[in-house]
């Protein structure tokens, strides 16, 4: 039953008795799906253009884009599986998934301590898994399930504290990794969900305060490795001559310049002076793909990209309204918040509005874990849409 979407015969007309308007397989949000697909294709071209000329040992050429296509295929299959399953089914399993997430975050943290440095992922052969990425999905479902449990439209104090624990534990573990960028996504998720679930304004304010003080304490106590603080210092002092800050200042400044020189229409495909030559923007294909689009396609290209994100966000927001139950609404609200925040942070850091973090631009940036995570989240949203009439 679950996989009926895969083997469903084409509709043969209104008279088809086996066909029903409420069947999940007939209720995919194709607009969202098409936007999603367009973003992914743009992503592949961006990764290719930003990486092909770089690399000391000869240019990378198709190396990164090939890998990205493989990631997308794997992620698409995973997404289809998620779509085929009723998201309500997850409510029962989410405890196990959440526990698994926390365990793997602790494990990564311990490995990092043992190696005396920042380790964000498990390396299993050629694949590396970042628990902080997959955790976005499990924590999203766990929080959504928890907040929708009593069916109330308000968040009382006990539920607020419970949600704080649920979201706070992984957030703190990720801060300690240290990965301030990813932890900010979790904070955004908590704030978005609590807002939609009806938390009082003071609770939201409390979360904001807690998040700021945790980050502050982590920075001041030295638990967070210096390279995280250096990025913030670099952002605050763009003219510093301190060699420690130079790498980040250099990276940020070049990304900004690349975006700016695109002008209105851009330099054209593979014609960018910065993007398409030597490695002036380190790891541009993962950290600064927006600058690659900005330089090659200009304001128009950027507007199209942001517009596509806008359509996707609007569709998710709409599905939140249409959901058959609170769980679905909350899942959509969470995906909405995280997508919005990651898109904003990545683009804003490219434009020099915020400090540099390692947060990828959803669907555009190169990276296996990130791609898979966002496919899973969009799969969940589709699942909510598909079952809105049940």
């Amino acid at each position, binding site marked *: 039953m679950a996989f009926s979407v895969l083997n469903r015969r084409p509709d043969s007309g209104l008279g088809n008795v086996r066909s029903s308007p409420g069947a999940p397989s007939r209720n995919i949000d194709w607009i969202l799906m098409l936007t999603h697909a367009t973003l992914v294709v743009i992503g592949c071209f961006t990764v290719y253009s930003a990486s092909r000329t770089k690399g000391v040992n000869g240019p990378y050429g198709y190396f990164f884009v090939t890998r990205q296509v493989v990631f997308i295929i794997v992620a698409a299959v995973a997404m289809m599986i998620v779509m085929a399953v009723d998201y309500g089914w997850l409510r029962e399993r989410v405890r196990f998934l959440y526990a698994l997430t926390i365990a793997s975050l602790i494990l990564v943290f311990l490995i990092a301590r043992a190696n005396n440095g920042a380790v964000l992922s498990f390396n299993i052969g050629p694949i590396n898994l970042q628990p902080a990425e997959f955790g976005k999905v499990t924590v999203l479902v766990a929080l959504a399930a928890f907040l929708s449990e009593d069916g109330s439209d308000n968040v009382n104090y006990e539920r607020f504290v419970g949600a704080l624990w649920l979201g706070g534990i992984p957030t703190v573990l990720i801060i300690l990794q240290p990965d301030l960028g990813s932890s900010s996504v979790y904070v955004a998720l908590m704030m978005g969900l609590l*807002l939609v679930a009806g938390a009082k304004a003071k609770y939201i304010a409390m979360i904001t305060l807690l998040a700021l003080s945790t980050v502050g304490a982590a920075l001041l106590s030295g638990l967070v490795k210096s390279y995280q603080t250096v990025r913030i210092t670099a952002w605050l002092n763009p003219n510093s001559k301190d*060699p420690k800050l130079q790498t980040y200042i250099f990276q940020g400044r070049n990304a900004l310049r690349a975006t700016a020189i695109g002008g209105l229409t851009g330099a054209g495909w593979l014609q960018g002076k910065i993007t398409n030559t030597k490695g002036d923007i380190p790891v541009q294909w993962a950290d600064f793909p927006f600058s690659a689009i900005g330089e090659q396609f200009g304001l128009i290209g950027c507007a199209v990209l*942001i517009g596509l994100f806008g359509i996707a966000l609007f569709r998710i927001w709409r599905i939140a309204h249409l959901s058959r139950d609170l769980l679905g609404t909350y899942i959509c609200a969470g995906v909405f918040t995280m997508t919005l925040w990651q898109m904003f942070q990545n683009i804003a850091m490219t434009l020099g509005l915020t400090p540099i973090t390692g947060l990828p631009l959803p669907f555009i940036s190169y990276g296996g874990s990130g791609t898979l995570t966002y496919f899973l989240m969009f799969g969940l949203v589709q699942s909510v849409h598909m079952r809105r009439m049940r």
Partner: protein
Amino acid sequence: MAVDKRAARLGALALVAVILVGAIGARLWFLQTVQSTAIQEQVNNGSIRTQLLVPERGRIFDSQGRTLASNRRVLTITVDRAVIRRLSNRTILFTRLSGIVKVPVQTMEARWKDGQYSQFLPLPIAEDVSEDTVLQIESRSEDFPGVRGEEDWARVYPYAPLASHVIGYMGLILKSQEAEFKAAGYLSNETVGQFGVEKSMEAYLHGTMGKVVYQVDSANRVVREISRVDPVPGKDIKLTIDLKVQQYAERVLETELRARRQTDDPTLMAKNPKLKDGTYKFVEPETWFYDKDGTEYLPFPAPAGSVVMENQDTGQIVAMASYPTFDNRWFTVGLNKSKFQQLFPVPDKNDPNRADKSILVNRAIQGQYNLGSTFKPFVAYSAIQSGLIDPEATFQDNGSFVLAIDKDKCNQGVRCEYFNALASGTGRPAVYGPLKLQDALAVSSDAYFYRIGELTYLKEHDLLGNELRNFGFGSKSGIDLPFEFSGRIPSAELKQQLITAKVLGKGESPNYLEGDNVQLAIGQGLLAASPLQLANAYATLANGGFLNRPHLIKAIYQGGVPDGYPGYGDFSEGKATVLQSFDAPETVKQIDMPGTTSLPILAGLERVITGPGVYFPDSFYHTTTGQQLFHDYPNDTLPLAGKTGTAQGSQSKPWNDSSVFAGFSVATDQPDTKVVVVAYLEKSGYGAQAAAPVVKCMFEALGGKVTMADVNIADPLDQTSIYAAPSNVLPADPANTGCLINPYATIRD
């Protein structure tokens, strides 16, 4: 209702989204339309490469034009930092390079991480590579992106290890110096002078950086030169040192110290005093002992020493030797830590008997010494000038001096009686009978000067100390060298400081006592001075009261003095431009020196060399301290005056006696040799035994009786050696070493 509320909240979320997207939209629009052109221009001009041009460091010459320090062009391999920012790229490139430049990948990686190399400039990977290596790399530029060969300079010392303490050495900028050099525009990985003239003249020697700015294309190839500022080479410096004299001084010093250590002649060794019960007073390491006639003798440790030759009138330093010495080329070859520790061992401070053998110390200016009797002329000057003694009046020397203080105090353990040095014949304090000042200086009567110590103290506690400061004691001479010791004149203040610093024991009185002043009057006690200060004070005495600032720098020249005869610079007419000359004496202070004061002192000092001594009792002849040693010295050719000194060391043990001698020419008609020579040989015996022969040799060489060997350009540094400098002694030829032999000098002081 509930649904409406939720819709409102979702609306709030949408509002947040609109605000955030609006913010980036606005910024993006501003950036890509309004700012675009300006940034486009920045980027076009931004594809530039800046290359710093290192100036040639100023060279150092001796007074005869010999090139003491020069430079050699070297090629350095550097890598553009942008190319190796990623670990994987770095590893690949470093692995390829390591085989060609012969540097391990780990070393390159360590340099990449090392903060001392500027982040704005290409990273230097290997220094001093061959032309072939650079060609090999540049011909395969596609395999070595961002790798280039750059020209740089390396310091060379053609005559090393001669005068290493004076010339000094270069080293990387220390952590403590970073701010200072950064402010002066240095790069963080530059080498700078860290010792000697290299350090003190750094500001002149360094020169000014040049800079070329290139425009480069996307592959980092030079398109055109945008601007160029040529580097300004450092100033060339001529020293007052004459390397030929310097070499001779170093050789005489080392030869004498080795002779003191290795002798088996008991008359030249230290005697272990025997007690009445037949046992020996001191216990020392057995290897030192030498048994003969039932008395124990041992050679002196003679670990170290220094010689200074200074022109009396100008204050110019002709030679300045310090032993043990080192080869300053060690600092140009990149020593690792263990090799450095092997070459420059740290003296073990916990071993009280171990002599200080630290090498990287210029003892001539950093030595903190008692001066012994060489100090007496200045004490005499102070007493005459204060009107406390009449140089022609006689004083009865009974072998000791009893302080005129309350006898009860003496019984309570205060030291009241001070003795003369022991006479060699009797083993008891020498008794010289009635002495005028010049007699007291000639035979070095301590009692006479103990009395001055008392007289000056009773008049005013700090009178003697303050008078002595006129000769430059207790303050830096201002010579053009770093790390000079300022010296110590004892006072209540100083005693308090030393007690606080735990140099003096807790039991010591913090007051300045009469005993302290009496000790000061014979150059002992808390007095400390460097051999250079002593030489400069003698120069002041000899030139009639002009306290000059001693100079090592003769002149500063415009950079780029051409090479002349191999090993020499070309200073002939029109070839070298003098910027600043220091030939005129720089008088710090002129002190009052009437003939009534100076003549008796000079008469006494001349008698030290020539005799006669004094007869007491009756016809028993006491020779002067230098008379026996200088009996074969050609005093008619180059007449001298001088003074011996024996500085007592730890626990007054005989083998801790340090030997001092100051001699100066009194021939007014020979301006070229109007010099003061001071020799200080640590733990080497009486003044006449070790230091005086060294000074005698120096003057015999100046007077032409002994020939000084010519100076030759050094062999390349033997990097396998375990010594900081090879042995440098006089050739084993009696004509050369004869001046060192002194079989009679058994007189203390």
